[in-house]
């Protein structure tokens, strides 16, 4: 969910009244938003950095409001105020229409075929006769930034350029050229650069360096020229300095270049509808819905929708309502989205609670049922349950246990942020040993267990993703003496709980085995009905040491799925 920060006093001024924090929180809740935080610039800086850095910052109160991810029309003060005012019946829902310029032809943006190789779509509009104040200007820039970070996916899908129309002249051309052939004076620079030079200039720019990768490797870079050959922008990196907007700008030329046409339109619609009463977009959609048998009267529903900026009227045909979807509401793609708005306007807390009528019988997942029962009795046998992570480092399941990672059958993560999340665990043992290492001050003996899933690669048919979970039971005994007999006793007890008799063949037995985890001669394999289900033994001193432990330790790990 994006968070929008607005100055409280500006917000109240625009809403025409002030609210207490509680009242405003309630209003947000009713409108489907959440007042996340009440803060100030000063507080934010001192929290993120330190008090000394915050010294000069503003202490004007800021409201941080959580907005649903697809409501781009609420990402700025203007849109928020409009939505809330209509919701409170203080304002009629605006209708947006395109107007032609008073004199002359509409502006044109010509798209050449070269752009197909890098960024194939572009849409544009003109906002005419705008009066910027410092606050409106800031909000305009802020909204672009919010859109860039959200729907534009950090400019990769859509990039916005805004220009002072009076410094330039159309028609405009959107084309693509090799970087060496693009040469202009970019925003806030004093001389001209080629596109190649710009890419190396911005490599160290803390803000722009994040966008370079979008076009860097392409043979041609996108660029927009005016009729005099002046560069308006080189999307998605930087605008030209010549056409930059300022507080004095009257007419704003907005271009959106994109790899996705739908999103480019959404972004352009959002910008123009938020900042103009004279929009250039004709894009009104009409949708017909029928109020469902469970809802309020058709008339009430139409009124509720109108309060949500969705102008609605009865068609007179049955329960049908005609709803006009403004260009601000790109999130509405199905009738169910309209119904959702009606529900918000009605107030979720005003909905009468009912209960689904169907009779259903509950069933437990057999593996979880077995796990629950076994956990209780293993604890009753004197062992303490721990809860460890399903992800770990390669070392934890490989080197530290004396195994090659390729032999473990571990599933590998391609993008871990730290070494703790390189693979999914293939055994529960490392988690238990790490728990002991973090609890060395506890009185001995430590008797721990866990029943949980490990993940193993599996190419068998029916294992669609190429890996499967396997439920394991693992227990360790850590003391001044290895206590193999204790772990052995726990294994016997577990078999008793599972109703398996100590009998070679049709029952369970253990027999000597070799494993790098265990001390030679102190490891046995557990067989049930002749099939191996796990191992137990005294840990190899190398394993003990690699997990930063100092005492002898015995352990048991077995599969519990065969006992279902």
């Amino acid at each position, binding site marked *: 969910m994006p968070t929008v920060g607005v100055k409280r006093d500006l917000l109240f001024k625009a809403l025409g009244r002030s609210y207490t924090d509680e009242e405003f929180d309630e209003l947000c809740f009713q409108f489907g938003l959440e007042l996340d935080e009440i803060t100030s610039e000063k507080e934010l800086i001192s929290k993120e950095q330190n008090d000394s850095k915050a010294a000069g910052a503003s202490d004007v109160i800021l409201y941080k409001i959580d907005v649903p*991810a697809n409501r781009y029309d609420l990402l700025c003060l203007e849109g928020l105020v409009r939505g809330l005012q209509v919701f409170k019946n203080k304002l009629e829902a605006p209708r947006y229409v395109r107007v032609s310029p008073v004199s002359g032809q509409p502006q044109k943006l010509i798209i050449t075929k070269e752009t197909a190789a890098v960024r194939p779509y572009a849409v544009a509009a003109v906002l005419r006769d705008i009066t910027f104040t410092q606050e409106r200007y800031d909000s305009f820039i802020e909204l672009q930034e919010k859109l860039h970070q959200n729907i534009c*996916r950090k400019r990769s899908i859509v990039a916005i350029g805004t220009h002072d129309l009076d410094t330039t002249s159309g028609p405009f051309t959107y084309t693509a050229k090799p970087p060496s052939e693009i040469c202009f004076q970019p925003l806030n620079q004093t001389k001209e650069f080629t596109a190649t030079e710009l890419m190396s200039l911005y490599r160290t720019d803390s803000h722009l360096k994040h966008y370079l990768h979008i076009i860097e490797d392409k043979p041609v870079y996108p660029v927009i020229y005016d009729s005099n050959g002046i560069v308006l922008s080189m999307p998605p990196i930087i605008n030209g300095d010549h056409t930059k907007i300022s507080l004095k700008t009257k007419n704003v030329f907005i271009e959106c270049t994109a790899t*996705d*046409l*739908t999103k480019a339109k959404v972004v352009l619609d959002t910008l123009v509808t938020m900042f103009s009463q004279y929009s250039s977009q004709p894009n009104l959609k009409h949708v017909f819905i029928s109020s469902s048998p*469970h809802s309020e009267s058709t008339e009430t529903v139409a009124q509720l929708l109108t309060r949500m900026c969705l102008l609605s009227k009865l068609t007179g045909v049955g329960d049908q309502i005609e709803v006009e979807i403004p260009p601000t509401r790109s999130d509405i*793609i*199905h*009738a*169910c989205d309209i119904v959702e708005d009606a529900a918000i306007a009605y107030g*979720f807390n005003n*909905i*009468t*609670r*009912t*209960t*689904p*009528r*169907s*009779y*259903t019988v*509950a*069933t*437990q*997942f057999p*593996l979880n049922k077995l796990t629950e029962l076994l956990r*209780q009795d293993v604890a009753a046998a*004197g*062992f*303490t*349950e*721990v*809860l*460890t*992570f*399903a*992800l770990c480092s390669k070392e934890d399941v490989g080197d530290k246990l004396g195994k090659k990672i390729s032999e473990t059958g571990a599933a*590998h*993560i*391609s*993008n*871990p*942020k730290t070494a703790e*999340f390189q693979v999914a665990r293939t055994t529960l043992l490392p*988690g238990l040993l*790490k*728990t002991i290492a*973090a*609890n060395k001050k*506890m009185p001995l003996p*430590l008797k721990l267990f866990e029943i949980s*899933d490990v*993940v193993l*690669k599996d190419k068998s048919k029916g294992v669609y*993703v*190429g*890996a*499967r*979970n396997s*439920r394991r039971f693992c227990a360790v005994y850590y003391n001044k003496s290895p206590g193999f007999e204790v772990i052995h006793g726990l294994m016997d007890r577990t078999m008793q709980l599972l109703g398996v008799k100590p009998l070679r063949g049709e029952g369970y037995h253990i027999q000597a085995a070799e494993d790098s985890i265990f001390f030679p001669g102190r490891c046995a394999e557990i067989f049930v009905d002749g099939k191996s289900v796990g191992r137990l033994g005294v840990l190899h001193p190398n394993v003990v040491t690699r997990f930063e432990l100092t005492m002898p330790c015995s352990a048991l790990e077995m599969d519990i799925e065969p006992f279902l």
Partner: protein
Amino acid sequence: MADTGVVEALLLGLEKAEDGVDSLELSSSLGVEHQVVVGAVKSLQSVGEVISAEQRSSKHWQLTEEGVEISELGSHEARVFECIPVEGLLQSELMKLPFGKIGFTKAMSNKWIRVDKTSEGGPLIFRSVQTIVDQVREKLLNVLNGKDAELEEKEKSELKKRRLLSEVTVKSYWITKGSSFSTTITKQETELTPEMIVSGNWKDNKFKPYNFEAMGVPLDCGHLHPLMKVRTQFRQIFLEMGFTEMPTNNFIESSFWNFDSLFQPQQHPARDQHDTFFLSDPALTLDFPQDYLQRVKKVHTEGGFGSQGYKYEWKVEEAQKNILRTHTTAVSARMLYKLAQQKFTPVKYFSIDRVFRNETLDATHLAEFHQIEGVVADYDLTLGDLMGVLHQFFTKLGLEKWVEVGNSGVFRPEMLLPMGLPEDVSVIAWGLSLERPTMIKYGINNIRELVGHKVNLQMVYDGPICRLDT
């Protein structure tokens, strides 16, 4: 056990006394060490209210070792005086005596003796008075006999300066009769024994009282993990409400089931490398129900089922990417798809299992956590049904501010209809993390104190049973 003779003497003395007895006085009158009397007091205290004893401390003068010697043999100066014959004593001879040096100086200043330096063979010492009174010895004897009150402070401090006296603090008891005072004490038994039960002796024995202020012995027992105890309760709640458990034992999932089937667009931020763990091995899933996959592709790309769709180029390559599931809703999607392949019957499903997010870790976020999920699929479900089910669920949970712990909603038709579910079937669902309500319930602020190998086992040992609705 204390000296029984002293115990008896103490009790007899206390019986005769009007108000009480001082342990120090008692020790001197009985001629025993004070410690012996203290032992008797402690022993009597442990058998109940026979006596009560109040500790006191008093200052008291005592002779040093040298002081004791003087009280027996006389002061050094007196002994110097005594050993000088009428014909006098050579000073060099006197100085050979152990008390000679100090005694000579003191006797000189007392003017008991004089020195003739003119005599041949060295200085000669003579008595200069006929008789002397050894006041130092007398004062020390007074102190020794407990009559130190007769000495003036100045005299005491002078003797202290000469290291003949020292001041000591003595702790003593002021002993008075207790509520069950008696001069005869029967021996108290510590514990009931099998022999007593057999012989019936327990009827006549008196038992030493227990100290109920002390803690019992810590038990050697096993414990369940607090988060798992809460999980058990959540399972219980769902089962009580008639919800069937879903098989969620598949941490690795394809992007298709985790995102695409839920009508999550492929450019959605949640599908970013920064939010989701992708797998390099096994990297891809290739096996999907093909007709269903085509319907999902269509609804994303161009819409249908009453939807305009997202209008973007949907790529199967993106759907094939394996990930660690980011929510258990991936399993719900598989279950609903399976349900749609049969003749529809209403269902209620739940699951509680691990999910994974490639998040930046902090006090409330880990890379993996447990998601609780409830799903109801039935004909014509309404928002009222969702509100009603949620209300029942959270009432059982005993959480007042439940809006803050989870999400809920109605699944979109773009998700359900491509699966093949009937048009008049709605599916409502809600989800929350297991960790968050547990942290609220147990007042834990840092998730790392609850989950993972770094938790303090003492927290596990000390955890109460989990009763969510109280």
